[in-house]
């Protein structure tokens, strides 16, 4: 079957699903974006379904800066955020500071939109074969790197082969593990690339999107000299980089991007990024007017920013979580009754209120959470229920009470979450001792056996922060499958694995929904981890700054940002 025929059939299938009531309009948009339909094409699909294209529930509130004035050209936007921990090599970056810098001068095949949907970037379209184990990407023509060399399939192939080579040290190797292997990325012609997967994977486009930040497309001759001679296709060029202090960018005069009116992007002449670790210091700089944009604002201390008449805090539907993982190989967490007992002790709205002023979305210990990931089946809310918790403790042989230790890094709001869990477990007879470690100690491990020793993977019960992931399947693949190297729960449920493989092997929405329901139920019932909330993302800017693209946080595309007069 040709690609076009396949896309036509899939489009017809999506329309039928919506008309039969088996799929919402929002689900249609998400699935259409995964399978490479442009926004226009997706709109046509909605129109074909009949009714208004604005139907369907929004997963989360839209950014509040949606009423935009006309773009203004020129000027320099001053940004503030943490410094990259290391020299920001796109192949190995793993922290906020590194990602936000790389986002300005490099690009991905696919980008994430404001609601974690997919939008074309260096790839104009993408389709899968019937088995969903070969994905074909059509690349954008007329794109050049800022050193003048043309962008093409060769660059894509070398970029993926590089991160799949263990010698590169890229964290993407773990992310793509079991899905894409070395040699699986093949050039078809100068502007066509095929990804031959190890197994069918319907969410694969997310893995080559900006959400998987190490998959930035680098020139084929990239030699790691990233801060001294940075080369990319992005809207800006890095002009200066001073480790731990600042970075500055100027607009890329040969950038391919244009706005809807045909204006050359980017709008501004340049960006200045000041590196400041401390959130209070960042907030004070914003309030003093010294800087214009804070790509990621943390809730703690943000009240003053919300109240500042000169600033606008945009709220984005975040998908970041705090994973409260039970290590099911360690006592007492082998018994799911005890895991469930803890889950029923949590007063999730109270936690949300205490940590995020009630602005985040509640989670019920499953990744298929419809309030966060459009297309997910309804989850079963877990309200605080001490009677049930005590019964579960009794069923687990702990009617006299349970003494457990919760390990947590002194980082972000994790210690406060641990304290809330401790307080909410006590009335049920669960005595929680908090083992608070420094951030460094929490992620440390022996040189010879890191994953066998590091606390974040090996503690009996711990809290780990996860940045945004664009789809439930990406989360599950990273931490709930038996071979997932980042599995703090060490959970191995054959029913879940079978259903998950089926889920990622089908594009039939009715089947996917059935399988998602099953996966959600298994995950929630077994409770290898607790997911009490999905964290809404905040981004703060001066009131005259508009047009920042991306799903909040450090995925921050400034190509259409501008400063109104």
């Amino acid at each position, binding site marked *: 079957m040709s690609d076009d025929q396949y896309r036509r059939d899939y489009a017809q299938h999506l329309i039928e699903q919506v008309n039969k009531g088996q799929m919402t309009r929002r689900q249609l948009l998400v699935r259409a974006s995964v399978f490479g339909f442009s926004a226009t094409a997706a709109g046509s699909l909605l129109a074909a379904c009949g009714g208004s294209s604005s139907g369907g529930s929004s997963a989360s509130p839209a950014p509040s800066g949606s009423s935009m004035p006309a773009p203004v050209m020129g000027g320099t936007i001053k940004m503030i955020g943490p410094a990259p921990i290391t020299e920001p090599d796109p192949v190995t970056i*793993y922290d906020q500071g590194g990602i936000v810098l790389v986002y300005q001068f490099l690009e991905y095949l696919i980008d994430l939109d404001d609601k974690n949907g997919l939008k074309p970037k260096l790839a104009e379209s993408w389709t899968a074969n019937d088995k969903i184990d070969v994905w074909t990407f059509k690349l954008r023509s007329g794109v050049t790197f800022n050193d003048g060399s043309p962008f093409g399939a060769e660059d894509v192939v070398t970029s993926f082969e590089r991160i799949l080579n263990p010698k590169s*040290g890229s964290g993407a190797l773990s992310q793509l593990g079991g899905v894409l292997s070395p040699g699986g990325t093949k050039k078809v012609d100068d502007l066509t690339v095929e990804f031959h997967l190890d197994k069918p994977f319907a969410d694969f486009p997310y893995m080559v999107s900006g959400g998987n930040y190490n998959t930035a497309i680098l020139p084929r001759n990239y030699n790691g000299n990233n801060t001294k001679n940075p080369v990319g296709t992005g809207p800006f060029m890095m002009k200066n980089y001073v480790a731990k202090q600042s970075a500055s960018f100027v607009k890329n005069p040969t950038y391919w991007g244009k706005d809807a009116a045909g204006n050359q992007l980017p709008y501004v002449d340049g960006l200045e990024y000041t590196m400041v670790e401390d959130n209070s210091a960042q907030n004070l700089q914003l309030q003093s007017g010294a800087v214009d944009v804070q790509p990621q604002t943390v809730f703690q201390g943000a009240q003053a920013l919300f109240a500042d008449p000169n600033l606008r805090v945009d709220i984005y539907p975040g998908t970041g979580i705090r994973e409260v993982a039970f290590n099911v190989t360690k006592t007492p967490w082998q018994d799911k009754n005890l895991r469930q007992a803890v889950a029923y002790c949590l007063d999730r709205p109270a936690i949300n209120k205490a940590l995020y002023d009630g602005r985040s979305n509640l989670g019920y210990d499953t990744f298929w959470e419809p309030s966060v990931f459009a297309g997910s089946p309804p989850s079963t809310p877990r309200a605080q229920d001490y009677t049930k918790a005590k019964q579960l403790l009794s069923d687990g042989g702990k009617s006299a009470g349970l003494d457990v230790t919760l390990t947590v890094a002194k980082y972000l709001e994790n210690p406060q979450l641990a304290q809330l869990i401790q307080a909410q477990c006590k009335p049920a007879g669960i005595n929680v001792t908090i083992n608070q470690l420094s951030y460094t100690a929490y992620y440390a491990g022996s040189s010879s056996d890191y994953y066998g020793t590091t606390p974040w993977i090996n503690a009996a019960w711990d809290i780990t922060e996860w940045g945004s992931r664009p789809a439930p399947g990406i989360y599950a693949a990273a931490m709930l499958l038996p071979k997932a190297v980042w599995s703090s729960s060490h959970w191995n449920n054959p029913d879940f694995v079978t259903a998950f493989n089926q889920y990622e092997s089908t594009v039939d929405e009715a089947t996917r929904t059935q399988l998602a329901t099953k996966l959600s139920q298994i995950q929630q019932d077994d409770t290898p981890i607790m997911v009490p909330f999905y964290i809404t993302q905040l981004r703060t800017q001066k009131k005259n700054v508009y047009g920042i693209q991306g799903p909040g946080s450090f995925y921050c595309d400034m190509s259409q940002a501008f400063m109104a007069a």
Partner: protein
Amino acid sequence: MLRLIGRRLLLMVPTLILASILIFALAEVLPGDVGRSILGPYATQEQVALLNHKLGADKPLYQRYAVWAGNFVTGDWGESPVLKVPVRPTVMKALGNSMVLAGFALLLIVPISIVLGVFSGLRRDSALDRAITVSTLSMTVIPEFVSGVVLLYIFAVWLKWLPVTAMPPQGSNFFDRFYYLILPAIPLMFLELGYIARMARVGTVQVLAMPYIRTAVLKGLPRRRVIFGHVLRNAMVPTVTVIGSQVGWLIGGLVVIETLFVYPGIGKLMVDAAQTHDVPMLEAAVLVVAVIYMVANLIADIIVALLNPRIRMGG
């Protein structure tokens, strides 16, 4: 005295060698390794092992120390494996920044605290003495992250009289630099004022009780001459010693101020290096601060000896 100074300078050599060994050993016991710091928690064990091997971080400690020390003494301070920048210019630039901040802070702290301390000592047990003692000690107990945030909010955010950072923009003139340093220097003044003023007060009170002061007064010397000719000169001995011991901290220990005011000093550089197992950067920065510390103490001892020739410098 020159012989004694030479002896003190020579003693620095074994001290620095011992310090460098200690830093290497302590960096070893810190959790994690440099490969993991560079690649992060999501890299596989194999990837980290490959990088550690490439960096030589998997060699025995004594081998790594020998290589590093051999290069260091010949002027090759190496490159940071984490930041991929040459160590020497990075450390020296950060040191220069820290010395400017410390120097400016000392310019504010020393005269004010000595005046307050001596005045307090001369008016011992008076209401003024108590007011000075209580107020300066109260300021001393306010942590710099509290006073710093409050001052920033009042003077930079609310009144907008002073800049919110400590570094002026590129191209600023010499005096601009000091304008930018006013706000970060004030929390340091709060911290040091009580301590140094207290020492000046104690020194003054002790000297005032000495027989030679009583003799000077009884033989009819004017009060001003007694104070400036005899009291101050001798009362400054403990104060100068304390100031000397604080210089090292003012240069290498201002992590909080440097973080809050976004100032690229050597304190923050050392903390970052320690957290990421950046041993070449950590070694160089700590040794440089150690030298500053020892030189500052030596200078303080020389000043003390000049103030009071009866005191001879110890070994």
